[in-house]
């Protein structure tokens, strides 16, 4: 458990994706079965046990500590699990640290110990005590082991009695012990068990344990990243892991055996597995010269959620249907109204949309159906879900992914016809003979076939007729040609340092537009952006920020923004929404810096009214 805790701890601070992968893969390599499998399960959200409530954790700490000290500590730390992990007092150590009668010299405490242990000899001897962890491959005495101190006692204590720490302390639990125990533990036994573990683990171990049992890891690792790291253990393509994943279960012994070359690849027995998604490259103007219109089929790019809708027969012939996000997340539970429509075995690649009276609604409308804890009948009625099909990856038992797109498209048409369901329709193709014709269609989807749904068109997709369905973003097969974004000129107001590689740069920008205030026009913040600029532009903005800071609030710099002094940023964004959380009342979707307008004085930047007009146009749609 301590080794797993150490991994989580390090991951929580590491901003870089590649470095996260290195840490994860290193862990999978170093730690044996079944611990690493349960770790993978924890990171992919595949563990299932009843989570402990924060109130239980509070009760545990209240029984051990002074309430005033806990209150002050909690206020300072701000996170319950962390506070408890840090201040959890060891039952045994207590009597040692606080001598009952404050008798003067010779000191029974560390004062004296410190005198003697100046040479730091404790550190080397203590390493041998850590081997109680559930690790099978301890051949390399990794320096990482240092953190995972078992007994919770410290070097200076250890110095006085080097072997004291394990005398009465049982070894800390392994991750496997924790997970398997939690799965079977009754509710009433949980507090005692947690208390035992908290006594056995070190600070980081306790923190990880509490995060795990309360079900709130939140360390910025997606399931996808964890699987990618596991795949790297065997130099496998992460898509291969993704393919077999639905058929696997913790602690994934068969998966690791295959990754380490000790066994055959596990077979996915899931009747409705996820298939790795094919993605498109954004097309640039210069790309068109080398492309022949005859090689491509065009279709609308709908502004919804890309999904994979899979149905398959299990051993007994019953249909299982699942809806996956493009990152393989199972989102079936959020869209129960679509499940009955998935009654033919097959795998559709399509877009999830809201249709009202046959009309596709904007993304803003769809968004109101997302991330709801409870999918109520009212929600289902008001936001009727719809699947618009782009592609067919499987037809009954047949895997179609090797077929050329043109052929899959024909199969899709037949499939959708056979399905004959009002909730599922075919995304129409856009006829064109030249790039000019397609340019015209993209500029005016309404007259090019999208009709009344034109507002929900985000651009066009170009797919090579002969392209097989390949995982990832293969070159030259699929192109997306998005509608031009909205553009405004805004003024840089605040800048904040970035993270990781960017930690020495002011790379997060808050920008604002003008609005009438009490004392004349003033800037009101309308959004934040931290990408879109080139490396060279980043240097320029960074320099500007440093030279034009008027105030500092912690990591945030207040940058000069007046009518004739300041920096105008051209901001591109995809859409606008009303937002009570923002002072300006609007929130942008996907804002990024598209250009630096050194030439423009701030007073000529856009006004809030411009955004409000755009908002009205979108709002009209939502309320109907």
């Amino acid at each position, binding site marked *: 458990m301590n080794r797993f805790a150490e991994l989580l701890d390090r991951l929580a601070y590491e901003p870089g994706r590649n470095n996260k992968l290195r840490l994860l893969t290193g862990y999978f390599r170093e730690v044996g079965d079944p611990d690493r499998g349960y770790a993978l399960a924890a990171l992919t959200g595949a563990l299932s046990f009843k989570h402990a409530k924060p109130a239980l954790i509070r009760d545990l700490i209240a029984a051990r500590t002074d309430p*005033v000290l806990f209150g002050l500590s909690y206020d300072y*730390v701000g996170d319950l699990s962390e506070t408890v992990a840090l201040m959890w007092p060891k039952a045994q150590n207590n009597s040692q640290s606080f001598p009952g009668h404050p008798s003067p010299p010779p000191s029974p405490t560390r004062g004296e110990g410190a*005198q003697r242990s100046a040479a730091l000899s404790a550190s080397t001897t203590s390493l041998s005590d850590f081997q109680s962890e559930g690790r099978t491959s301890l051949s390399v005495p990794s320096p990482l082991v240092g953190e995972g101190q078992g007994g919770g006692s410290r070097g200076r204590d250890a110095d006085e009695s080097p072997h004291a720490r394990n005398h009465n302390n049982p070894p800390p639990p392994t991750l496997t012990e924790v997970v398997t125990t939690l799965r079977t533990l009754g509710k009433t036994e949980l507090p005692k068990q947690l208390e035992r573990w908290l006594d056995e683990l070190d600070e980081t171990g306790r923190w990880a344990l509490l995060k795990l049992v309360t079900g709130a890891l939140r360390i910025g690792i997606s399931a996808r990243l964890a699987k990618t790291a596991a795949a790297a253990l065997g130099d496998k393509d992460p898509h291969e892991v993704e393919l077999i994943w639905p058929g696997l279960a913790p602690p994934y012994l068969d998966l690791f055996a295959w990754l380490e070359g000790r066994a055959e690849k596990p077979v996915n027995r899931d009747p409705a597995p996820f298939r790795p998604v094919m993605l498109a490259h954004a097309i640039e103007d210069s790309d068109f010269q080398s492309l022949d219109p005859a090689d491509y089929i065009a279709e609308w790019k709908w502004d919804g959620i890309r999904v994979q809708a899979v149905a398959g027969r299990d051993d007994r012939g019953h249909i299982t249907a699942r809806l996956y996000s493009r990152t393989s997340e199972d989102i079936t539970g959020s869209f129960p109204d679509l499940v009955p429509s998935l009654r033919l075995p097959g795998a559709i690649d399509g877009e999830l949309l809201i249709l009202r009276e046959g009309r596709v609604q904007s993304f803003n409308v769809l968004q109101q159906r997302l991330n709801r804890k409870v999918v109520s009948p009212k929600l289902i009625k008001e936001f009727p879900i719809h699947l618009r099909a782009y592609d067919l990856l499987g037809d009954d038992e047949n895997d179609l992914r090797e077929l050329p797109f043109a052929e899959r498209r024909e199969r899709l048409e037949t499939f959708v016809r056979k399905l004959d369901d009002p909730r599922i329709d075919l995304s129409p193709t856009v006829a064109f003979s030249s790039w000019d014709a397609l340019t015209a269609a993209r500029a005016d989807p309404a007259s090019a076939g999208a009709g009344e749904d034109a507002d929900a068109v985000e651009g066009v997709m170009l797919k090579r007729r002969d392209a097989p369905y390949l995982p990832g973003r293969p070159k030259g097969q699929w192109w997306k040609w998005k509608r031009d974004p909205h553009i405004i000129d805004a003024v840089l107001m605040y800048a904040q340092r970035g993270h990781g590689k960017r930690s020495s740069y002011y790379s997060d920008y808050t920008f604002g537009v003008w609005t009438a205030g009490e004392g004349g026009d003033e800037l009101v913040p309308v959004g934040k952006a931290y990408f879109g600029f080139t490396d060279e532009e980043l240097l320029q903005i960074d320099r500007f920020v440093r030279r034009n800071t008027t105030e500092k609030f912690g990591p945030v710099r207040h940058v000069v923004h007046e009518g004739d002094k300041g920096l105008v940023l051209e901001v591109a964004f995809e859409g606008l929404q009303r937002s009570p959380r923002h002072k300006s009342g609007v929130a942008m979707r996907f804002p990024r810096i598209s250009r630096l307008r050194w030439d423009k004085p701030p007073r000529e930047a856009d006004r809030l009214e411009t955004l409000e007009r755009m908002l009205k146009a979108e709002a009209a749609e939502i309320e109907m």
Partner: protein
Amino acid sequence: MTGELEALASYMTTMRPQDILLPVAAGLCCKPGGFHIDPVRPVERAVITHGHSDHARAGHGAVLATQETLDMMRLRYGENFAGSTQAINYGEEIRLGDVCVKFHPAGHVLGSAQIAVTCKDTCIVASGDYKDAPDPTCTPFELVPCDVFITEATFGLPVFRHGDASDEVNKLLASVTLFPERAHLVGAYSLGKAQRVIALLRAAGYDAPIYLHGAMEKITEYYQSRGIDLGELRPVKGVKKAALAGTITLAPPSATSDLWTRRFPDPVTAFASGWMRVRARARQRGIELPLVISDHADWDGLTATIAATGAGEIWVTHGQEDALVHWCQSRGLRAQPLDLVGYGDEEESETPATDEAEA
């Protein structure tokens, strides 16, 4: 003035502790001895616990401190940092006015001392900053039995438990092994912390050259001149970016998030501080590798020391006074927060002159 006080002192049979030491605007004032301890404003006679800038300031008339503390003040403020100076050894006793002053090791940084002030039969120990954990770069903390113990409270909350510093250094070394193509940048206060981290790295068997930010060269050389073995150290200035892959560089904390870091290949930013125990503090600073290494006593250290001094009265200064005062009171000790201003966490306040032009 002094005559009056002497008369007053002899008149009273027992002195109240606050008649011996009293917090005033300039710092902790000892009227019967005619001096201030760690004064934050220029005074006639100053007795100084250690060389950190919030305790050791320039401009006093006369300064009494350990040789190391005086040397550090000289390094920082120049030759004329005080009117006159007097060095005192650990264990040495000096009579000042009506009091006796004795210096004891505080284990905080090189030359750091606790100051025991005895008047009649009342002994007050002003411990300055102290730690009871092992540190190869300074004389270990010594427990001084007393009647009144003045303790710092920088880490005066039970969430601060610093653990074994060598484990933290192992964490750093593991990261260097895992990311050999990246530079490791360790933020550490330049007086004391930096040298301790280097010594810990050496003790852990790391024998490659360690690189230093310009702001810590002088003080580190001073440590070496006092016989503390720190192995091969190199200034980082002028070293090619590629050559810094896989190396460890120590820098003042404020430098690790600034322009200066651009000379390093994809740096891993570490920070050696007791504050790193709390995640939010580490994240706020953009630290990737927090190293819980402190020059101050942690909660267990503070409480164990307080209990062991045998003092019946505890004065708590700079830091989280509330929690420590509460702890003392719950154990039947008289305790009060001492209203002293001007002391703080040196790590937060250190702003070395980072040369932007160098970047």
